[in-house]
């Protein structure tokens, strides 16, 4: 061992300074002799000789610094030659340090990291994200029902097809149309996407059935006229046909709880209050704000609520929670002259009531006379898992009774 290297003199020592050589070049050295004093990170310490011989060379003189393992001197025993020659091996401590970066596993390039989604972040639970990705549903189209509007699993609409493993062959895909010359490709708004996904899911997954009933609206028209003339002189807003319909739908639903219900997988939930989702057309689609506890509200209260909804819906001022919690939906197209139509159930609700226009038509009265009647057709679309035909029919019967005898609803 002719080469003397900078000793490691403590557990934390990395390099040392030769404070002072205690042997000169050419001095005889015995094992145990102190060759030099070395300043470490902790203190000045002694560098001991471990072999007998002659100090031939000093490579690092007083005040010089060497890393642990770097050569500082050469001690040759009697008859020994300098094996290391003029080019002693490179300081050991450096070799691994220099080699490391090349050896170490390359860290993934920062670019490989997934890019953060642009724009505002949709708050969604990890499970909701996973399910949405599986079903190909865009999160931005969903309304979150979780705390702070977080999209949770139940907000992700179920897919038309059953899960892959147990599924029959998926239905053939309807090819998307490419926009041709002169056509306009309108990007989907969030609302349009929600409508598309929800109603597709409803129409394809819920077993719909449809009932229709024609009601005599003349009594209702008379009452409305009387009340509105009174309101007019009092400077109050006018009542609409729709206000009466909503009042009737709420009252009827509270006496037919099985219609005011939802399918819950392993059970049916009957709701304790009637919350009516009112379809309100807006510029780019429709929204369905909810009249809460409609069965307990007066005609006046319902009217005021709907007017407020209509205004704020057009101004896009409705809050997310105002869309939530509906138990039954009413859609009215009477203002457009539509006499009769069938709506798609608004899940997770089990029923939607579609109200047509009031039209004058010849009817046979109780005296078997043909007279001019004011008739309105009301339709019910139901989720057959929850509601049966007879149940739906009973509900429509109650609805008719209320509309034909509107005074019953004012008490």
């Amino acid at each position, binding site marked *: 061992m002719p080469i003397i*290297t900078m*000793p*490691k*003199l*403590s*557990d*934390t*020592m990395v390099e040392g300074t030769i404070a002072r050589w205690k042997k000169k070049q050419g001095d005889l050295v015995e094992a145990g002799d102190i060759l030099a004093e070395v300043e*470490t990170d*902790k*203190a*000045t*310490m*002694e*560098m*001991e000789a*471990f072999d007998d011989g002659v100090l031939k060379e000093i490579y690092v003189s007083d005040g010089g610094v060497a890393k*642990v*393992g770097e050569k500082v001197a050469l001690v040759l025993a009697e008859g020994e030659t300098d094996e290391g020659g003029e080019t002693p091996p490179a300081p*050991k*401590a450096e070799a691994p340090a220099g080699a490391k970066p090349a050896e170490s596993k390359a860290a993934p390039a920062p670019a490989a990291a997934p890019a953060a989604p642009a724009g505002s972040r949709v708050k969604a639970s990890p499970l909701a994200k996973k399910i949405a990705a599986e079903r190909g549903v865009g999160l931005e189209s969903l309304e979150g029902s979780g705390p702070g509007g977080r999209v949770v699993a139940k907000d992700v609409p179920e897919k038309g097809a059953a899960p892959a493993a147990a599924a029959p062959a998926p239905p053939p895909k309807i090819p998307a149309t490419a926009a041709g010359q002169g056509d306009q490709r309108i990007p989907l708004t969030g609302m349009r996407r929600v409508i598309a996904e929800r109603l597709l899911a409803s129409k394809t997954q819920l077993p719909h059935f449809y009932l229709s009933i024609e009601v005599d609206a003349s009594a209702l028209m008379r009452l409305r006229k009387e009340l509105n003339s009174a309101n007019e002189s009092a400077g109050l807003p006018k009542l609409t046909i729709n206000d009466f319909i909503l009042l009737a739908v709420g009252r009827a639903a509270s006496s037919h709880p099985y219609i005011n219900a939802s399918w819950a997988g392993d059970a049916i939930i009957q709701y304790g209050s009637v919350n009516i989702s009112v379809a309100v057309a807006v510029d780019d689609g429709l929204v369905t704000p909810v009249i809460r506890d409609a069965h307990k509200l007066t005609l006046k209260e319902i009217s005021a609520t709907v007017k407020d909804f209509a205004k704020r819906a057009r101004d896009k001022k409705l809050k997310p929670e105002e869309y939530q919690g509906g138990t039954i939906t009413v859609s009215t197209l009477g203002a457009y002259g539509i006499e009769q139509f069938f709506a798609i159930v608004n899940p997770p609700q089990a029923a939607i009531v579609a109200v047509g226009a009031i039209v004058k038509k010849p009817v046979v009265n109780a005296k078997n006379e043909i007279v001019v009647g004011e008739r309105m057709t009301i339709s019910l679309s139901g989720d057959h898992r929850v509601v049966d035909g007879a149940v739906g029919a009973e509900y429509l019967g109650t609805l008719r009774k209320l509309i034909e005898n509107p005074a019953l609803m004012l008490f």
Partner: protein
Amino acid sequence: MTTTTAAPSPVDYAKAPVNAQLTPEEKIELLRQMVRIRRFEQTALKFYSQGKMGGFLHLYIGQESIAVGTVSLLGDDDHAITAYRSHGHALASGMGMNECMAELYGKATGCSKGKGGSMHFFAPDKNFWGGHGIVGGQTPLGLGLAYGVKYKGLTGSALCFLGDGAVNQGCFYECLNMASLFDLPAIYVIENNKYSMGTSFDRSSVVDKCLAQRAEAFGIEWEQADGEDLYEVRAVTQRALERAHQESRPTVIEFDTYRYYGHSVADAKHKGGYRKEEEIEKYKNEHDPIRIFKNHLVAEKILNEEQYEAIDAELKKEANASAQFADESAPPTESSIFEDVYYEVDNQTEAGRTGRHFFND
């Protein structure tokens, strides 16, 4: 400080029965054991200096007579346990240089598979139970070994080594109380090398006669003796062993001794700092246990200089070979990090396969 300097002992310990009965070969073997520890440690220091080892290196050089003298007396049901300055006791217990050196190098061939290091040598098959890093922390374990021996109805003992610093740890006194209360065959051997790291023992301990005297408070027999003479170490230790074996009673022994190197190799102040260079030189020249015992054997005409040189050369060679063995050995594998943590996991028992034991990603 009120220490009384012990007058030179008139007792000729060579004539103590436990020494008188030794054959010349056995005496030479005892010398050889001491030289073996010294050459091993000098070699360890050399390669520590070259950066072959990590952490600390606490050298026992100067104290060899105590480990060799005490352990040489132990029988099948006598156990030994010590603190972090563990190389001497390990080798004296019969451990091989290779497994010890490889442990210092942190290699898989080390006695603890490279998991323990300098302070943690173990050989339970040789009744050597470590090798413990926390000062004084081994004293309850030594008590437990004595408890186990007695519980099993064996005639044996536990020798628990500690330093002059460890005597000020509280649990040591809990052990003395229980050793006496439960009549346990525990022998606490205080190796008083005068310094707990950089604090001389008169700056750290209240001393009347000596540290071992504290045993009186617990009704435990105690002795203070000169640790530099292997004959004396054996004679004194033998009395404690007989007390343990015959009466199941504890003993506290204090041996005066000295370490030539610092608390650890990193101890920069041991020379000219907290102790004078002349003090170290005086011990080396006048109290060196190897030289003293060698002189005994030369005087007894059992050994000549030439024979000694041959022994020394052989042990240097063994030490160098162990360094080469250690250097050439493979380090432990990365997966071995998780081995030897739980017995049940290592042995893949039902218990070891049930539930999660490690909490990495």
